[in-house]
């Protein structure tokens, strides 16, 4: 039988990366709040698990690396060493390095040791610096143990695949230790000398040996596998039958083993019970009268007795087995679920996009329950359908109601499977903020709230980079240098808080800083300078803030290497929009800024407003709707011939008649008393002229691109209750289209002026 270890690699990689994340979090926590036992244990456990797994699966480079980490952490755990800031830094670097190594392994790439070697050396330097201290502190035995450990691990490095040899190493180690124990008298003179004949073993177990699950009969069975085996039991210590207990083993044995096996082989069998017995192993050849010692007290019991027939022993063993042989129905336990994504992974998928989701048992259980209910409803309905009579109409509508409920709950549950707590995206920030604060010399505290807010895995994967960008910006542009803060009467340490929460059908992520805030006049001046807005334009504050997201806008006076590395805020907004989300800015000069990112809970389903234009029904994503209103003619202004603006409080919203945009027939082509759905995207509002507002409902998003191609103004399609197809409007696209047209208009006007 062979087990292909490769099948466990992916799980190992995933959990190791998770372990590194956990370690990093704990290290950062230790760095800012000091060390407590629990976090040290957490850090240790992570290193330890990775070491254990990598050793088992044969990733020796990882094992070597984690070994030095573990050794150091073990000392910290045993309070022999402090976790200094320097050590934390080294451990953090190691996390990065290990992450890189694991990702390389995931991609089946050769490991590059240029990064790991100096780190290992750094660990060793710290560790060696310590050994003198240890001797000083009279902990010599411990030190010996450690150094012999080191040798065993050195061999492990040389030949980690051969686990037997490692086992033997540790076994040797055990021997060296047990020498000092008085209970075991090992004949050292003969250790290791091959015996041609075999061994005589005097085995006196301590009475409680059975209580660790070690049964002498099992040891004998193993010995019997080494050669010809005979045993003599000594019953002199047995009490009277009435005071016999099943817990105690009061027998002892003299065993004879005719074998070529070495003394080590014999001792290995007793490995686990070394400290629970007195054991004497002497070569048979040494004793002139081979066989059982004549001087043994129990002459009558001298005959070699088959183990199974040994009466006294039988009492013990049988009762022991009887206790544990309570064979009950074992409850089936489903423990690990790994739900594979159905879509095939791209050839060289990036290391971060792991192909599986780990799903909590509770989620799967709730699915199973719901499916159970669905089956009941289904059988109820089909029974009803088999012989339907009008009287049963009530039951039918009840059943359909139930079906609706089941379907809804099932849908929610299935969606929950793809949901992960946003902490997965938040986790990288403590480290990032620490590094950035170091780099900029600013003092920043990070506060995370609502980390358990769940969000679709795909949304999470795609929101990471925009969030990083926003956080970087907050440190770089938001939080002031220490002197400036103090001068303004603020705390030396700035605060950035990340908050996630549900609001309606959305997840809102807030990136909030208590920095200098955004100066609207500066932004406006700059936008005018860059020609992004008309020189005379007067804009509301929120419109001005939105200018930050315009392509080609960058506020940083100096482009630092933290933010402003080519990727602008326009990309941030585009990424968020492409996820079906939007971003808002609130800012108070001198007090700080808040960037609010609104994200859909999932990409598979959308909350939509159904609108009708002529005979067509379109879906407007609810998230982008500002409001729907009946047009008041006096608020409509015609500009530039064919562009109509609607005055919505301080905004002038361009009116886009969908029938014109899409070239279809509509009932109402007049603006007067028409219905306007005001939508917002990419910082701009437009009003969609429709014939009718229908229901709001959740729709499942279907691709048009799969079988056709991208359609301007349409982001996808869905299937309505009657089976017909309805197109989902691409609000961002419609807005872009509208603004392109208006800028063309503006250009041609300028042209006219110039002429």
């Amino acid at each position: 039988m062979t087990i292909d270890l490769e099948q466990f690699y992916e799980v190992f990689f995933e959990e190791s990366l998770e372990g590194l994340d956990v370690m990093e979090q704990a290290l950062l926590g230790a760095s800012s709040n000091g060390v407590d036992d629990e976090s040290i244990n957490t850090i240790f456990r992570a290193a330890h698990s990775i070491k254990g797994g990598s050793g088992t699966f044969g990733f020796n480079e990882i094992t070597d690396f984690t070994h030095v980490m573990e050794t150091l952490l073990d000392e910290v755990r045993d309070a022999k060493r402090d976790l200094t800031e320097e050590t934390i830094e080294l451990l953090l670097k190691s996390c990065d390095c290990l992450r890189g190594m694991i990702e390389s392994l995931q991609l089946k790439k050769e490991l590059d040791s240029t990064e790991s070697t100096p780190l290992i050396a750094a660990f060793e330097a710290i560790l060696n610096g310590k050994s003198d201290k240890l001797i000083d502190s009279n902990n010599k035995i411990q030190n010996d143990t450690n150094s012999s450990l080191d040798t065993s691990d050195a061999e492990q490095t040389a030949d980690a695949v051969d686990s037997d040899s490692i086992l033997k190493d540790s076994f040797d180690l055990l021997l060296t230790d047990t020498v000092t124990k008085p209970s075991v008298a090992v004949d050292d003179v003969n250790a290791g000398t091959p015996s041609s004949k075999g061994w005589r073993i005097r085995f006196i177990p301590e009475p409680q040996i059975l209580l660790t699950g070690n049964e002498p009969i099992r040891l004998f069975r193993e010995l019997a596998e080494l050669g010809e085996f005979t045993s003599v039991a000594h019953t002199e210590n047995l009490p009277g039958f009435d005071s016999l207990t099943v817990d105690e083993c009061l027998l002892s044995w003299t065993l004879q083993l005719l074998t070529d096996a070495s003394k080590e082989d014999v001792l290995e069998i007793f490995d686990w019970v070394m400290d629970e017995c007195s054991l004497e192993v002497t070569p048979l050849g040494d004793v002139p009268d081979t066989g059982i010692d004549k001087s043994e007290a129990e002459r009558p019991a001298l005959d070699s007795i088959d183990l199974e027939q040994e009466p006294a022993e039988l009492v013990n063993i049988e009762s022991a087995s009887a206790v544990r042989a309570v064979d009950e129905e074992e409850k089936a336990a489903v423990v690990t679920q790994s739900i594979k994504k159905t879509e095939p992974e791209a050839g060289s998928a990036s290391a971060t996009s792991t192909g599986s989701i780990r799903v909590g048992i509770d989620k799967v259980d709730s699915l199973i329950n719901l499916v159970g209910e669905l089956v009941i409803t289904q059988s109820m309905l089909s029974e009803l359908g088999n012989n339907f009579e009008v009287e049963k109409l009530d039951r039918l509508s009840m059943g359909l109601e139930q079906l609706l409920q089941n379907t809804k709950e099932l849908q929610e549950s299935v969606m929950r499977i793809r949901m992960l707590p946003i902490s997965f995206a938040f986790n990288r920030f403590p480290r990032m903020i620490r590094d950035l604060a170091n780099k900029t010399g600013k003092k920043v505290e990070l506060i995370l709230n609502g980390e358990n807010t769940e969000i679709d895995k795909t949304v999470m994967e795609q929101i990471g980079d925009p969030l990083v960008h926003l956080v970087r910006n907050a440190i770089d542009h938001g939080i002031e240098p220490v002197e400036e803060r103090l001068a303004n009467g603020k705390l030396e340490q700035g605060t950035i808080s990340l908050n996630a929460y549900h609001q309606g059908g959305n997840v809102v992520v807030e990136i909030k800083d208590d920095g200098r805030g955004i100066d609207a006049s500066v932004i406006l001046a700059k936008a005018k300078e860059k020609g992004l807005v008309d020189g005379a334009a007067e804009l509301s504050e929120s419109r001005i803030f939105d200018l930050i997201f315009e392509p080609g806008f960058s506020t940083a006076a100096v482009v630092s290497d933290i933010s402003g590395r080519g990727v602008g805020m326009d990309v941030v907004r585009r990424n968020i929009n492409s996820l079906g989300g939007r971003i808002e800015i609130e800012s108070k000069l001198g007090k700080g800024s808040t960037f609010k990112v609104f994200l859909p809970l999932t990409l598979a389903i959308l909350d939509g407003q159904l609108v009708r234009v002529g005979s067509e029904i379109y879906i407007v994503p609810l998230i982008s709707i500002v409001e729907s209103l009946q047009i008041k003619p006096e608020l409509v202004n015609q500009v530039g011939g064919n562009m109509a603006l609607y005055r919505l409080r301080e905004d002038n919203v361009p009116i886009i008649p969908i029938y014109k945009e899409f070239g279809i027939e509509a009932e109402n082509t007049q603006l007067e008393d028409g219905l306007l759905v005001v939508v917002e995207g990419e910082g701009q509002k437009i009003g969609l002229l429709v014939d009718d507002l229908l229901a709001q409902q959740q729709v499942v998003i279907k691709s048009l691109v799969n079988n056709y191609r991208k359609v301007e103004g349409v982001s996808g399609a869905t299937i309505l209750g009657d089976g017909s197809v309805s197109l989902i409007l691409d609000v961002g696209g419609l807005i872009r289209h509208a603004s392109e047209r208006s800028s063309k208009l503006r250009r041609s006007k300028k042209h006219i002026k110039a002429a």
Partner: protein
Amino acid sequence: MDIQSLAQTIPVEGEISLDGLDFISHGDEYLTFCLGEEHYGVEILAVKEIRCWETPTLIPNSPSYVKGVINIRGIIIPIIDLRIRFGVGEVVYEPTTVVIVLNVETEAVNRMMGFVVDAVSDVLSADEESIKPAPNFGGNIPSELVAGLINMDESVVTLLVTEQLLTLEEDSHD
């Protein structure tokens, strides 16, 4: 595909029956159909199903021959009117008007589309020798769409390349 129901529900021109059709055969069988007076054929293995005409959902600003999209068991597919595309026949939607749904899954193409035709006529077996190379069409049909010609009684059947037919949308745009 359910051959029985197919045979019953499709309006078939003439007296040709689809009974005894071997769908698991060699791939040199063609489903022929009419566009006006002209006969065309597509590989039968690419035919997913044949449906009656139903009004699709319009796709804004699409070419006139793209009639819109419909839902086939949860998949959204576009409907192309080949009569408009090829400029043949009269564009009317009658109860006999059918949509042939073609599905191709190769490395290059993996898509499904519906094509509006006047009627399905026959299943044609053709070995390679009987397929004649097509002369260079001057008409509306791009030459890469044509696999060849087959003579059938007095008329000629133009065999279309399914993969090309399904990529037609991308090629003729952008």
